[in-house]
């Protein structure tokens, strides 16, 4: 989606969005004329707003985002391991 649609979907003001992109909290795809956002950016913006609603200050937001992203990386890996690597060692002869 384009920037205008994203601002509505994420309930954000333009200057807040710029600040978040500046800080690296959101990473839309940069197109020739406009940035392009997807559903994950909307959900991530909502998460940032929830964190701020919980009293998380702007120093802590990127730390939490980074740890959450790491956790999802680990979750994906564990899921792949569980589905594919659960086979026990077999005895050859």
């Amino acid at each position, binding site marked *: 989606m384009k920037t205008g649609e994203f601002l509505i979907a994420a309930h954000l003001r333009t200057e807040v969005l710029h600040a978040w992109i500046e800080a690296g909290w959101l990473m839309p*795809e940069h197109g020739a004329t406009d940035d392009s956002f997807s559903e994950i950016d909307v959900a991530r913006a909502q998460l940032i707003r929830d964190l701020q609603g919980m009293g998380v200050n702007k120093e802590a937001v990127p730390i939490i985002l980074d740890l959450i992203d790491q956790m999802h990386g680990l979750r994906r890996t564990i899921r792949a391991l569980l589905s*594919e690597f659960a086979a026990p060692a077999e005895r*050859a002869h």
Partner: protein
Amino acid sequence: MAADPYTTLSVKKDASPGDIQKAYRKLAKKLHPDLNPGNKQAEEKFKDVSAAYDLLSDSDKRARFDRGEIDASGQERPRQRYYRDFADGDSQYSSDAGFADFAGEDILSDIFGRQGRGGSFRMRGPDAHYQLELDFLEAINGGKKQITLPDGSALDVTIPPGSRDGTVLRLRGKGRPGLGGGPPGDALIEIKVRPHPLFRRKDDDIHVELPIPLRDAVLGGKVIVPTPTGTVTMTVPKWSNTGTVLRLKGRGVPRPNGTSGDEYVTLKIMLPEKRDPELETLIGQWASAKSSNYSGNQRRAMGA
């Protein structure tokens, strides 16, 4: 029918806005679905807590609720898409920083390449683990061995000379097939070495105990010694005692660099199997001639 928002947030009817915010934050930190990606109940509870907070944090709505003009229903937010619903896939936010350090040599690095948006899932096949039991000499001397896998297929394995117990051989691409066009995994074959009745291995050296006849122990002579590559002839020096260790250089375990360890032969004097009256007489004469000297030697040898 939504629950009472005061109960949901565990606050009193007359709680101050500050108390309500504090109660909400405490619960939200615990229940936010993105902080509990594996907890399916968290989402439902968080929704209730958010709805209760929406109502009670708005002084106008709270007053109308308290006067009974509105009830708690209708306060629920439209179902929110949480970050966790998207972050499980591949995205510009994906991070392997939580495990990149153990990705170096093994399977993990290959599981998820960074493919960008819309990339399809492509995974290297998992490694297959096998155990292979070898005779002691097979492991020392190496060679080719064909193993039959549980699925009936055969796999040729080259055993490197000098393989140790616990060595893991990696056969590239002989593991399970990859997914989505990914390369196959490796076959990892752990070698178990059976013990040998004569030889013992210590690092790259071979130790063996060799019985020698009394004659050779006293007068010296040539004896036949088993080694992992066959028998060799060894010279026993005159007057060799039980426990004497002789070294056969280069007769031990072959090393990858082309050299070999040594074989250490521990001598063990054996009397003839059958009683030999002649020898007994001879020793008797010898002993009586040397008796005082002999017992003195023995006492010294025992530290007395």
